[in-house]
């Protein structure tokens, strides 16, 4: 039976308090805070983190990766291929981006279910991530949040099966961005709710229940899209669901994560679902996709996930409004007085593709020493025994390590000064000098456990320069 075989999520650690935004503009800020992608994060890096979380401990073959977002870093160039590469999926894996709609996350899920049902694929990883921008001072600035969710669709030992689905499309213009818009544009608030959101959601959800002869009481949880918590609470009532049946969409702690929102909420619901629980899932945007998801006896394996959604909600670092603006390039800042670094060149980046892919180094077949070149140059002669061309690939991205020594760098041209750089000794061997991220400089110490994370190393006028950094292990 086709279902969800694994789940994953990623919420950046940074939070912008809405009160802080309110103070900035002398208006009342809403309650709570919104998740903010770090200066070195974007939709792709968050998707990689959620995807890695989802495939963790699951060595089975993944033959599809569908990536959903409305904020792909490139207008032309596939994000799914970047993500599949960093997650180190098989070269024959189908990759596709589903974009331009808030419903892209559930549409990707529906496509994956179809692919597995038809036998065209055995396991499809669905990842959704968004990092949308509201104009400063506007309502979306406070409403939105950054994050990513992932589900693996397959048929072997699912933690939840898909018992049914129902979708409708609707050419309704409520929110949009043209090619020239940086910020979300919106129709009049009550109009888009009364003429768009409410009837579309009602039609889809009621259509699903009618199709499968089910009523709200048949579901233990409902997971659905809404723009904010007011709309969410109101819609649950309209659909006939009790408060206790409604999965918290974390608007207070994260914000509206766009195309990722339903998947993020579904991950949270499955982390707490009991075997047999029926969950109604409804995505919205240019129509609606709805599903009946039913937890199996395997769902209990998801109850002790590390990190869980609860962990990710608990680990937060406040970010002030100034940093938020500079991280999103919404305010020009004085450039570093240090000489500018050269833009990455495509040819060496191509030669370094294995290192970029999943932090691949090499291991000497003669002496067994794992090794990786700090700037990704190919290693031809073993650093330990000097054997020539006697290497096999050795993946470092799945290894943890310890900080051997470090430097807190106030000169480093980073948007999260001071920079922290470290010499990492990997468990199992291998040393790497790298930048760190998501750190608390006051806690930097030799011997600190670290893991690696896929980030933007730089982004200049040209391409996004994705690479790996180390970050403290949070446990």
């Amino acid at each position: 039976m086709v279902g969800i075989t694994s789940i994953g999520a990623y919420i950046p650690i940074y939070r912008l308090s809405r009160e802080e935004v309110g103070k900035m503009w002398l208006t009342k800020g809403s309650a709570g805070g919104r998740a903010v992608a770090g200066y070195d994060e974007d939709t792709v890096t968050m998707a990689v983190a959620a995807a890695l979380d989802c495939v963790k401990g699951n060595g089975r073959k993944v033959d599809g990766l569908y990536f959903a977002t409305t904020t792909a870093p490139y207008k032309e160039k596939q994000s799914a291929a970047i993500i599949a590469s960093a997650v180190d999926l098989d070269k024959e894996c189908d990759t596709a981006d589903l974009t331009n709609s808030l419903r892209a996350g559930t549409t990707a899920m529906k496509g994956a279910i179809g692919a597995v049902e038809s036998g065209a694929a055995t396991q499809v990883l669905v990842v959704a991530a968004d990092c949308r921008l509201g104009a400063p001072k506007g309502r979306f600035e406070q409403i939105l949040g950054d994050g990513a969710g992932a589900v693996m669709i397959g048929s072997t030992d699912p933690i939840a099966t898909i018992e049914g689905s129902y979708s409708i499309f609707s050419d309704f213009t409520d929110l949009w961005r043209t090619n020239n818009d940086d910020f979300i544009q919106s129709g009049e608030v009550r109009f888009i709710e009364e003429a768009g959101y409410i009837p579309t959601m009602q039609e889809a959800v009621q259509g699903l229940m009618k199709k499968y002869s089910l009523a709200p009481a048949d579901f233990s949880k409902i997971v659905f899209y809404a723009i904010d918590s007011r709309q969410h609470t109101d819609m649950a009532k309209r659909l006939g669901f009790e408060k206790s049946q409604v999965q918290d969409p974390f608007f207070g702690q994260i914000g509206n994560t766009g195309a990722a929102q339903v998947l993020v909420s579904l991950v949270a619901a499955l982390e707490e679902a009991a075997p047999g629980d029926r969950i109604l899932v409804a995505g919205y945007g240019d129509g609606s996709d709805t599903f009946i998801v039913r937890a199996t006896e395997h769902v209990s394996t998801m109850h002790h996930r590390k990190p869980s959604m609860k962990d990710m909600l608990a680990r937060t670092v406040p970010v002030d409004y100034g940093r938020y603006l500079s991280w999103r390039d919404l305010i020009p800042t004085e450039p570093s007085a240090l000489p500018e670094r050269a833009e990455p060149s495509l040819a060496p980046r191509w030669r370094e593709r294995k290192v970029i892919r999943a932090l691949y180094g090499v291991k000497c077949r003669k002496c067994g020493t794992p090794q990786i070149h700090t700037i990704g140059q190919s290693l031809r002669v073993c650093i330990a025994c000097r054997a020539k061309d006697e290497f096999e690939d050795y993946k470092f991205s799945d290894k943890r390590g310890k900080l051997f020594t470090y430097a807190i760098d106030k000169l480093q041209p980073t948007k999260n000064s001071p920079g922290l750089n470290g010499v990492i000794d990997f468990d199992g061997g291998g040393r790497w000098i790298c930048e760190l991220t998501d750190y608390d400089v006051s806690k930097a110490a030799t011997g600190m456990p670290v893991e690696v994370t896929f980030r933007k190393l730089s982004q200049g006028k040209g391409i996004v320069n994705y690479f790996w950094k180390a970050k403290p292990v949070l446990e």
Partner: protein
Amino acid sequence: MESIKDKVAIVGMGCTRFGERWDMGVEDLLVEAAYEAYEDAGIEPKDIQAAWLGTVFSGMSAMTLSPLGLQYIPVTRVENMCATGSEALRGACYAIAAGVCDIALAIGVEKLKDSGATGVKGPAIIGDNTDGSSSIGSGYSAPASFAYLGTRYFSHYNLAPEEGKRLLAEIAVKNHHNGSLNPKAHFHNELSVEQVMKAPIVAWPLGLFDCCGVSDGAAAAIVVRADMAKRFRADPIYIKGMAISVGARQGTIGSGYDFVHVEENTRAAQAVYEQAGIKNPRKEISCAEVHDCFSTHELVVYEDLQFSPRGRAKEDIDAGTFTLKGELPVNTDGGLKCFGHPLGASGLRMMYEMYKQLQGKAGPRQVKNPRLAMTHNLGGNAGAGVGCCVVVGNEK
């Protein structure tokens, strides 16, 4: 393999005032250093038979030396990161030792302050794909790469952060005192330990005064066959040994490197002592100019050059061993810290001071009865660098 010991002599040297030389271009700096060296050696420009020019960023090819008006002689431009000046001297000395010329010029120059930026252009990572085009090199600053040594040294030897900072401060205070006695130095101010410790942090544990000056400058040497040296002057200085050690980045690729010493320094020192026949460097070396680009590095260099036993530089710092009046004065001219660090010139600037010391011409900084002196550079970083040592003496 023969040692270079006593085959080559330095008979003239020149060094510009280092600093932010807005008033001088590369060409002015080269002329100023070269003509001081000619005059010191008592030679005419036409006497130069071959020249080695060291610069990292301030010009390409031997044509950078054209402002000297040399007349169709062989000129070689060399580059070896912060050891570039010493590399130019090495090239000239080897040519003399080989007998292919009798009088050669070694000159180093760097004009860092025309870039319009603070700090040194970076990271021109060794062996990378044509100047930083490697897409994934970390973007940290030069101080950060030497902060690694401090962080690890403190942790390895259980030094409390305050205590470690104080040790580093003592090094900066010493070098600034020496530099204050030197009209050619970039800076002339004395510092207190408290000032150094309270200075803004650049890359912990390095504060502003733990970092060397970014300077413009040039320095030059005239080298001749040792057996000809006395024809030029009564007090020539003889090359006793020259060594360069380059690893394979073992410290940054393979695990196990401790970040409390620099292997390239250690190996270059061992090699140079062997060439010079030095058994006990602490006793036999009268004074030294070492690569104090950052105070953390001078700290480990004391141990790499065997001036202090491993882990015990602290005792020598506290005893004042490396001060002007101490047992083994180090960086008597102010060092990179206070004299300044125009990359291509620094190795020859160090030699300029050791040359003057060995001739008894170091004025208020004069060390008592020196016999053997050494210079030391490190190009690159701890774990992946170019270690370079030269030993010179005033007796053959």
